[in-house]
């Protein structure tokens, strides 16, 4: 199993979830994060004082997937999150050793 972490633009989440559903993914976890990267931020102004904001709102999508689904999940996220502009985000893949469903105590790939 793999643990996939994707950083995406917030307004792409609906589209990402659609593609993931098509790829038969039924579980994921989302969190709000702030991202720093190549994408330029914006300036804020408070009573004449300028304030450079370069931490931009992003969403982090995390999912545990079976090894054989890794490719299709990466495809799905890439399609769903793509706008072609800087700041579209990245996908990271980490090895996942074990998964347990709390309700049943089941383990392994049937859990995810």
């Amino acid at each position, binding site marked *: 199993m793999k643990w996939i972490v994707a950083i995406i633009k917030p*307004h792409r989440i*609906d589209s990402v979830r659609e593609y993931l559903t098509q790829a038969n993914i039924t579980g994921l976890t989302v969190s709000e994060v*702030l991202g720093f990267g190549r994408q330029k931020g*914006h*300036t*804020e*102004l*408070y009573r004449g004082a300028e304030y450079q904001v370069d931490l931009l709102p992003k969403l982090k999508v995390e999912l545990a997937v079976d090894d054989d689904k890794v490719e299709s999940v990466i495809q799905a996220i890439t399609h769903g999150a793509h706008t072609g502009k800087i700041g579209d985000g990245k996908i990271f893949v980490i090895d996942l050793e074990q998964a347990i469903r709390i309700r049943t105590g089941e383990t392994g790939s049937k859990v995810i």
Partner: protein
Amino acid sequence: MKNVKTTTHGFALVGAMLLFPFSALASEEAVMNGADTAWILTSIALVLFMTLPGLSLFYGGLARSKNVLSVLMHCFAIACLISILWLVYGYGMAFGDGGAFNSIIGGGKYFLAGIGTESLSGSIPEGVFSMFQLTFAIITPALIAGAWVERIRFSAVLLFSGLWFTLVYLPLCHWVWGGGWMAEQGVMDFAGGIVVHISAGVASLVIALVLGPRRGFPTSLMPPHNMTMAFSGAAMLWVGWFGFNGGSALAAGGGAGFAIMATHMAAAAGSLGWMTIEWIRHGKPSVLGIITGMVAGLGTVTPASGFISPLGGAVIGLIAGITCYWAVIIIKQKLKIDDSLDVFPVHGVGGILGTLLTAIFASPAMGGLGYASEGMNMVSQLGVQFLGVAGAVIWTAMMTWIILRAIGMVSELRVSENDETEGLDVTCHNERGYIMENSQY
């Protein structure tokens, strides 16, 4: 002045003879009434309070958090701009003597020149009357802001509001309250069904059509980002409306008391009406529903408030709560018109409904206080009210469309796609509404 006085707001004009023989008499002798003045001074504060912060918070809470400041900015900047225009020519055009053209438009008193601390308008100082009227002139274009939120350019807001105030609000205000043709016809509009609600509502519909929907509408829903803020604003509207309708009696007496009672009962019944229909249709009543019903009840009772009984107010409110619920469904869900915060279905429909119902519920047979012009009965008054509604709808729709087209010729009306996605707060105003806790690094 007599002329003007008698044509003011609470329809004292016609009412003068009918309802307030004493104050009419007094006005001949130009005696200031301190008590009336105290109440209208209070009403000035109450009605400004309706826009700042009332309406601003109501609308701001209904927007998404990335646009909340832009909504507040629209309401606030409109209040400032209209105030200055009122000083320069607004009051004069609405309530000054237009001479031969007085049926069409007023004039004079530019920069409020010639008005002193001793000038009277009826039983109150003219300066007080002018300020009171200004608070109405402020809230009307601010109401329209509900139609264009989350996508309009800020410069277009200012341009539009200035032009619309000049070409729509001032004429309508003059026609109804400044001795213009509607007043001559005997149109009854106690506190602004036509002048405020129909005009704002119809303009909103036109704007929604010309501007087009927000990106994502109607597939993705755009829920209010802060219902507690919208609630606060709504509650302030209710309280402020006592000044709006009660102050329109222009006197501290039983008339103001009755107007407030009718207003209050309409708010309560409108709220319960909307709540009930939601409960039946969707299984659960909501805060957004109950406060929207309240606004519907209040907007609808406005033109009638000074002419009817408290019970009449409750009935009008109930009708309003139910009618406006369906109007929202039809406009937004069925016709898919993105009048974003539902200004037309609530204020426009409510204003039309209320203006017509005024003819019904003002009837002494319905417990009302009677018609403003002599010799009127329910049918004839209903005809006159229809005329007023039709005139207001047509004029507003036409002029709003022309103004938008004119502005569209010199600049874009909408922000760019990117800016709309990112939100107007940061892209148009360089600010964010909320910067909480840890985020503060």
